């Protein structure tokens, strides 16, 4: 997957997580919702790790290594010109 595809996947996962969270706020005992929440958060963690590995840090909290590579472009919100 290229960078845009990975970002798109992260958007979809974040959206699904937020929807599940809103549902769980009013239905905290719903097992289906809970299992879906655990599932998508796991997927989201893996997708973020993949993005960090391939494209660099997704957020300023994902910087790894001995250098501060967050300042290296492109940032996730930048589009190729």
């Amino acid at each position, binding site marked *: 997957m290229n960078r845009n595809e990975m970002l798109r996947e992260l*958007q*979809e*996962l974040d*959206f*699904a997580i937020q*929807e*599940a969270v809103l*549902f769980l706020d*009013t*239905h905290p005992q*719903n097992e*289906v*919702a809970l299992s*879906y929440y655990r599932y*998508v958060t796991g997927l989201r963690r893996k997708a973020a790790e993949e993005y960090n590995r391939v494209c660099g840090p997704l957020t300023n909290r994902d910087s790894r290594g001995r250098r501060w590579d967050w300042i290296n472009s492109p940032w996730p919100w930048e589009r190729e010109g």
Partner: protein
Amino acid sequence: MENVGREPRIPRSWMETDEDFAMECGRPHRPTPPRRPHCAGWSDDFRTRFDEADFMEDEMFVEEAVNLSAGCGCRPKPPVCPPDCGCGDHDHGNRPGNGCGCGNDTDDQDDDGRPGCGCGDHDHGNRPGNGCGCGCGNDTDDQDDDGRPGCGCGDHDHGNRPGDGCGCGCGNDTDDQDDDGRPGCGCGDHDHGNRPGDGCGCGCGNDTDDQDDDGRPGCGNHHRCPDMSLAMAYVARQRWTGKREIYSRPRALLRGTLFVELDLPFTGKGGCQDE
């Protein structure tokens, strides 16, 4: 006293009811509430002051207001008629919202010299909301042969339908068939007779079996909760049982919701809106 050109004060409950209802069902269901009379010498400024407590400090206004209310038989609290509304002999006692008006034409004949609203022989006595509006009259024989100006709606009986008032209407389609040439509201065969608030709006039909299976556009809210009390707000509880209630993630992001049953795009149609 000079007319200061202010808008007449229509009771807030009227405005909210008409606007909210019209917004929901696409057209007004009641006639515009009667405005306070604009008669010579009738000052909007005076009327506004009289409604407020401040007038009690001004003896001139107190005395004048008492005289005014006694002179035309109007209640001192709204509506208040000036000495001369130009309306002659009027009884406003029992008709909410009439203000100066059409009189209490109890014998339903246009022979008593009351100027009314220029509507001729009209009985507004029992029709809520008619007030002093020019109207459709009490067309009791349901024929358009009596020269009443009506609303241009042909033969309509508005007698028993709350909220119809003088609006153009759906008629009294008692056989519930769309075969009688009444212009109606373009709603097909609808009986609005017994449903408060339908008025002349496009409607919910007379869905007596309380099922949403008969192709009537309905308002979507008259027969889906048959056991629910009227005038109470409810929020149906969302369910998630694992049986295909959610979209795939890409589709969910496109539709703006993960849940199929919450995918309710605004189209400006449906519910009580005209198609």
